[in-house]
């Protein structure tokens, strides 16, 4: 599963962990996160600004 990082505050969205507080349970794919979703920590960058970091977990096996 892939990880995506906010370019401002370095918050990371990890598909494996999701972001339950924001309504994205573990294993929510990035594609399901709405485009107007802002970084939950700094809110100055939105989803399209996030930088892909590559895979998480052992070998990055897709769930």
């Amino acid at each position, binding site marked *: 599963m892939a990880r995506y*990082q906010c*370019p*401002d*505050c*370095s*918050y990371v969205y990890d598909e494996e962990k999701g972001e*339950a*507080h*924001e*309504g*994205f349970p573990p294993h929510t794919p990035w594609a399901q996160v709405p485009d107007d979703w*802002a970084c*939950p*920590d*700094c*809110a*100055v*960058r*939105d989803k*399209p*600004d996030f930088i892909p970091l590559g895979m998480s977990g052992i070998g990055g096996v897709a769930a």
Partner: protein
Amino acid sequence: MSTIARNPSADNAPDRYVDRKRYLWMLSVIWPAAPLIGLYLVSQTGWGIFYALTLIIWYGIIPIFDGLFGNDPNNPPEAAVARLEADRYYRILTYLTVPVHYASLIVSAWWVATQPMAWWEVIALAFSLGIVNGLALNTGHELGHKKRAFDRWMAKIVLAVVGYGHFFIEHNKGHHRDVATPEDPATSRMGESIYKFSLREIPGAFRRAWNLEKVRLERVGKSEWSLSNEIIPPLLLSVAIYTTLILVLGPDPKLLVFLPIQMAFGWWQLTSANYIEHYGLLREKMADGRYERAQPRHSWNSNHIASNLILFHLQRHSDHHAHPTRSYQSLRDFRDLPELPTGYPGMFFIAMVPPIFWSVMDRRVVAWAGGDLGKIQIDPASRKRITRKYGRAREAARIAAE
């Protein structure tokens, strides 16, 4: 930390920075106790004027200090930021400020309910405490931007003092996203008076906070009318604090007048801050329909050392909006920022007299936009007046550009 590498004015100075303001930051902790110092002076001298002590220092003395002490030459290099962020001392100061706010409210309310006071003295103390309540919003602001759950809870607890718990959502997720755009009820428009602005800002902020939580809770699958709505717990705490004060101290008529005034004036301090922080500024729309990212030039900055030391650096607002999770001790000043002529206290004061505020700020906004009125947020009702007055500047800018 990537936040540091990406700072727009990153410099390569090595980290030999010594924070000369380290111990002076205690002023930000002590200043919210100013109404209590006023009460002590009343008890020692019997002079009612000390009820207004906070009011006089805030609007009268601090602007003089800002003029005397001027700009703050201290500026941590980027290399020092990570070290400053990791230093627990600074964080502890923000925690210590929280009980000070509770003490100021509780002792002042007790005083009003039990001590003989003239009506004008009650009002003077209410305004004094209101200023300090504005600072509860400032403390809640500093804590609410942090990533730790403990800090965020402390933010809600201190915001409850002034009955503004929704600020935590509204500011972080609403204002920071929409700042310097027409969508932001907390960004003022050129030509808009603070009074007109407050009628747009106060209800607009609450609506935006509620909608943000509604959208989030729909995704989570919970009702907006539940304790999961982050607006509700601090609101309940406010109700509990004020109900307890009235029940314990008794429904004294002076107390019943005092409490709403001190709270409303606390809100007014936030309105004042929002009014001056982005007045007229506008982010441009990009080709894809999104706004350009919030940059330091989209906030009015004030690097005045005196007022910054009692405000946890709030006035280094440009860096704050560019990097909202950065702590107060690490905020930096940059060259070529839109600058306020004095610190917040002085600006708050002149904001209450719109013709003076406009005469000070409007030409600065026009200069910021390079004379192009199309790059400024203008109050629709004032557009004609402003175009008549500053339209020529635009012509001149166009000719100069050619």
